[in-house]
């Protein structure tokens, strides 16, 4: 792939990279710096890029995340900050969850987004990152695992727990709105 084509393909994904960078850093300036550094490194490593069927985006995500992780470790005052981000307790085997008890047919989803957004903001960063790669970027579990250098089971665990937390917050909203009409427990 020539340089022009590589550059064109890479720049198409700037919005996605910026989104991930914002999720990770939470600061616009740091996100911009992270995206820029990602492109510089990708550009320097372009000869090593091999198309494996998923396009260039996962490769760019991987570079971005590695830079973030390296910088976070470098900037960390002590081991705990990094530890908290990367080694969050994934939990052991948990009992099955009850299904959402409210009646979807009567639920006004237009009321949901605000609560959902607040719920997302309250998630731990490692949950939020997985959730974004899954929900917004539409990546498969395996792709997320490769990008974040995690076992696929960890990705699934984080994703399920994040969704459970969000579903619970919506269940609370359903209670507040009085739409818990159906008794659907199985």
């Amino acid at each position, binding site marked *: 792939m020539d*340089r*022009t084509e590589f*550059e*064109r393909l890479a*720049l198409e994904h*700037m919005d996605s*990279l*910026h*989104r991930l960078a*914002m999720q990770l850093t939470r600061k*616009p*300036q*740091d996100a*911009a*710096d*992270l*995206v*820029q*550094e990602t*492109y*510089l490194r990708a*550009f*320097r490593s372009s000869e090593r890029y091999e198309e494996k069927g998923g396009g260039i985006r996962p490769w760019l995500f991987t570079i971005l995340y590695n830079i973030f992780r390296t*910088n976070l470790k470098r*900037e960390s005052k002590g081991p705990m900050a990094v530890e908290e981000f990367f080694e969050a307790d994934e939990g052991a*085997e*948990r*009992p*099955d*969850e009850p*299904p*959402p008890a409210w009646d*979807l047919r009567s639920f006004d*989803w237009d009321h*949901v*987004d605000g609560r*959902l*957004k607040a719920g*997302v903001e309250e998630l731990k960063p490692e949950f939020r990152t997985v*959730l*974004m790669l*899954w*929900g*917004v970027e*539409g990546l*498969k*579990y395996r792709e997320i695992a490769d990008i974040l250098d995690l*076992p*696929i*089971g960890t990705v*699934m*665990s984080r*994703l*399920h727990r994040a*969704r*459970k937390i*969000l*579903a619970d917050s919506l269940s609370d909203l359903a209670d507040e709105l009085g739409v818990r009409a159906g008794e*659907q427990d*199985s």
Partner: protein
Amino acid sequence: MSSHEHDNQNQGDLSIAQLLRCAADDELTPEQHERLEAHLAAHPEDRQRIDFERLMRERVSGVMAGDVAPASLRVSVEKALRGEGDAPSTIGGDVTKSRSFWSGGRGLMAMAAIVVIGMTLSIVMRSTLRPHAAPEGWNAYGVQTVSFIEGEHDKCAKRPEYLQRKLTHTEIAEASNWAANHLGSLPASLDISQMGYEFVGLGPCAVPGDGASVHLLYRADENPDQMISVFIQKASNANAYSEDDCYCADEASGGANPSFIWRHDDLVYFVVSPDKLAPKPVRKALEAPGRVVHIS
């Protein structure tokens, strides 16, 4: 046990809730799919849970999608990439500032140098160019700007590989849309074919100053060797030219070729016209003021 085996074991041990979520995500193995079918046969009401999970994904996507990358970031990245190779665009412009958090690396050192140059140029511009005044005392910034746009014009006009790499938008309608998005507003009609100039291409550029900018190249129908360049930059306080005059910079003001500069709405136009091309109809098509002020 390898991590892969561990993964597979985890997937095999899915709870019902996890199984339903994996089903919603189309991530089930054949074995898990069989297990799901058996579960749904006994609990058909759980199909609704799968629907719910799909709906959740849509809503999560909606609330997390956020804004697109800022235009300034796009410009700075494109500049940085071009600065990595044999490319233009390394003077001036709104480059993302380097910070200690991301310190390290030659690329960022180079970017820091660009920032310093850009800030210096910006200060010079603010101190010398005033609205509703000809750019008196055509200063270092003016000379630098003219030099830059002429240099870019020459490279694109004379080096096909450079042109191909820089001006990647070659279809006029698509290029116009891209420019409008990049600049944040819609420029004047970029199609000047009726004036005898065929559109060659458009790409991002780094005209000195604060605003994003683009470079367009046209070829004269009568003589394919004759080309004119149009640079369009988002106006800012630094280049707040009067909208009443079209400034002409020529040999006397530091340029090897005549360059026309004017402002219309919130965009500043620069036209490089070797051999005294860019006749009045072309400037008019690009909404230049009729009165030309020669900069001395």
